């Protein structure tokens, strides 16, 4: 959509707002921001919502959701949009953009990096899309409790698939996402080759064959809170997990969990704006504000996720609550990036339906 189209739409919406369809009140305006609840919502609230309210006088209504586009789609389809800015998984951001559920992000929205570099240089490649501005990197890693391995400890992705040296049950998310990448990398495919291999039937077959080797020993998890729990309860000896959850268990609950960064699969979250929001200008202001390197660094002081701007990484020092140095816990820290893969959300958005069916069939076998 062209910039003029956007303005036209904005004008129409302003008219609607004047007719009483707006949720806004007061001069500075208001905004409904939707996040994931729990630690993520607390972090964003501390690092971004509160500072934005203080700086602009805008009131932010906070809401939580569990991902997915169903709610946004309902709002857009019924013309009753009351969400404005949403923390999206990239996957949803891409689909939402294609489906016209999200506003296009203007090209000139973002400011330069902390080192003066242009945004296109400063942001990690691919983290800015038509309808989404990258926020944070999170990573799916492997983790274990050291008590389960009194002798040799697992250290690589390959060890996760090695039942002989490291017997015991494994936790994995019940989804083909990430797991297929893990399988191929464990089978010796270089990270940059993974999606090219998956694109072929033989490559897909190879990934499932690798998963076959541990299939009977996998406990499938659904929610991000499950893996730390299962590791603590000795339900599994090794599990895939979100690095932030493990970090939280380490610093907040003093769990001696160990993360294996080898073969981590990075994914990033984005800010998106629901199409047709009456608060478009305020929403864009917020995204601009939240996308500065300083703002991103503040998020990483709350929770162990990395800024998607390179120049924000050096600004992250210690965990605000505990004072722990954050660098070793962030997915994009150089020492953790030895073998790492950034998930190709575009590939997944084209293939998820088919692969998910295949995965479900494989699970049910």
């Amino acid at each position: 959509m062209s910039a003029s189209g956007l303005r036209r739409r904005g004008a129409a919406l302003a008219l609607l707002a004047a007719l009483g369809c707006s949720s806004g009140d007061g001069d500075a305006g208001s905004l409904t921001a939707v996040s994931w609840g729990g630690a993520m919502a607390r972090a964003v609230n501390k690092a971004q919502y509160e500072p934005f309210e203080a700086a602009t006088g805008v009131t932010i209504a906070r809401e939580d959701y569990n991902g997915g586009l169903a709610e946004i789609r309902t709002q857009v389809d019924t013309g009753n949009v009351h969400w404005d800015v949403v923390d999206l998984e990239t996957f949803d951001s891409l689909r939402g953009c294609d489906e016209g559920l999200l506003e296009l992000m203007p090209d000139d929205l973002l400011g330069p990096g902390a080192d003066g570099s242009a945004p296109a240089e400063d942001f990690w490649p691919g983290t800015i899309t038509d309808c989404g501005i990258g926020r944070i990197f999170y990573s799916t890693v492997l983790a274990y409790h050291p008590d389960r391995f009194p002798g040799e400890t697992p250290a690589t992705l390959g060890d996760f698939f090695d039942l002989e040296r490291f017997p015991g049950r494994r936790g994995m998310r019940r989804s083909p996402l990430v797991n297929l990448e893990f399988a191929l990398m464990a089978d010796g495919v270089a990270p940059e080759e993974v999606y090219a291999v998956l694109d072929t039937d033989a490559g897909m077959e190879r990934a499932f064959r690798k998963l076959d080797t541990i299939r009977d020993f996998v406990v499938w998890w659904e929610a991000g809170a499950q893996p730390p729990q299962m590791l603590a309860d000795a339900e599994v000896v090794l599990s895939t997990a979100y690095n932030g959850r493990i970090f939280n268990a380490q610093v907040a609950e003093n769990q001696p969990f160990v993360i294996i960064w080898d073969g981590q699969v990075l994914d990033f979250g984005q800010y998106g704006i629901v199409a047709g929001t009456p608060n478009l200008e305020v929403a864009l202001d917020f995204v601009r504000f939240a996308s500065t390197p300083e703002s991103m660094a503040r998020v990483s002081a709350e929770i162990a996720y990395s800024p998607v701007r390179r120049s924000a990484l050096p600004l992250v020092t210690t965990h605000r609550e505990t004072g722990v140095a954050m660098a070793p816990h962030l997915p994009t820290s150089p020492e953790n990036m030895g073998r790492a893969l950034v998930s190709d959300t575009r590939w997944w958005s084209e293939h998820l339906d088919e692969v998910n069916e295949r995965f479900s069939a494989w699970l049910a076998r």
Partner: protein
Amino acid sequence: MTEPRSVGPPARARLRAAGLTLPLVAFVGFSFLFPLGTMLSRSVYDPLVADALPETLALLEEWDGETLPGEPVFAAAARELETALGDRLAGRLGGRVNRVASGMRSVIVRGARAAAEAPAATARETLIAGDPAWGDPATWRAIRTAGERFTVRHYLRALDLDRDAGGSVVRQPEELRIYVPLLLRTLMVSGAVTLLCLLLGYPIAHLIANAPPRRARWLILLVLVPFWTSLLVRTTAWIVLLQTHGVVNSLLVALGIVADDGRIAMIYNMTGTLVAMTHVLLPFMVLPLYSVMRTIPPHFMRAASSLGANRRQSFFRVYWPLTLPGTAAGSLLVFILAIGYYITPALVGGSSGQLFSNMIAFHMQTSLNWGLAAALGGILFVAVGALYVVYDRLVGASSLRLG
């Protein structure tokens, strides 16, 4: 003057009485029938591609489906794709075609971009320059299929069927057959849960129905307590109890019944699913059973034994048939609820915890393929409806007693 024969007042009263039900009728209509109807209509009707590419699709009707279409088709497609791109429709178009053939999303979007940006000498070259897949008849077949305004392909998918290149219906390749096995497993799990609920609920309901009123009230309360906590809490409680190092296993180890390294896997498998779902759904079995048992006077059982029946005969020939309306109602209720459950089995069911409704949720929330979700929902709807018909034949729906 005498009052005319009073035909008016009853008719008016009837009208007024009918009027009182209007809010309910309207509520049912708007909150239930209308959404159900629109949802089901999505399973067969999707005008998006047909509206965006009318000319292309009209031209494709004459196409043989084997060779690459001619330049007029390419030209129409390029023109319509360019317009679609301007209207921010290209992505959605791509998404729709992608559902017919994986990987088509980017083909469509790249084609649209190419048509808008760098027109080559011919439309064919332009599109193929955007993405070489435009040179493959398969792309055009996918577009033609996606362009059907009314379609049964969602239902075909939902039944693990597909159309081959020639248009005849064939079964999906084995590694993609998922919905029918899943439906069968869902029906089986629901059946097993119903049976367990019946086995557990029947004695409980009998106990409550024959307890003195004060104790019966307390027992009912105990049956209802599970409703007071959230589903997630209850499910998590089962994880704590049943996991490898959980309460039950530790107790068994402490009692020396199982060895420490021989702990029983009771969760993240079918056992976990059955236990947790039975617990969650038990009240729906107990309440209808209780309400029916309460109305069975004790002298029926006395009569049976005075007539010479032993306990087993009295139970199976008198008591059990008399509780049939409650048994059937409870079973129907539990079965239907179980069919739609997915959070509990997903959390405690391990690899077998994937049920039919999980796929509906997936297509509603993640893949946004509401057409397929609606078709899956429609099939579930038909399955439950068929069950009801069978029930009606066997027991008679009028005897349903829900409590």
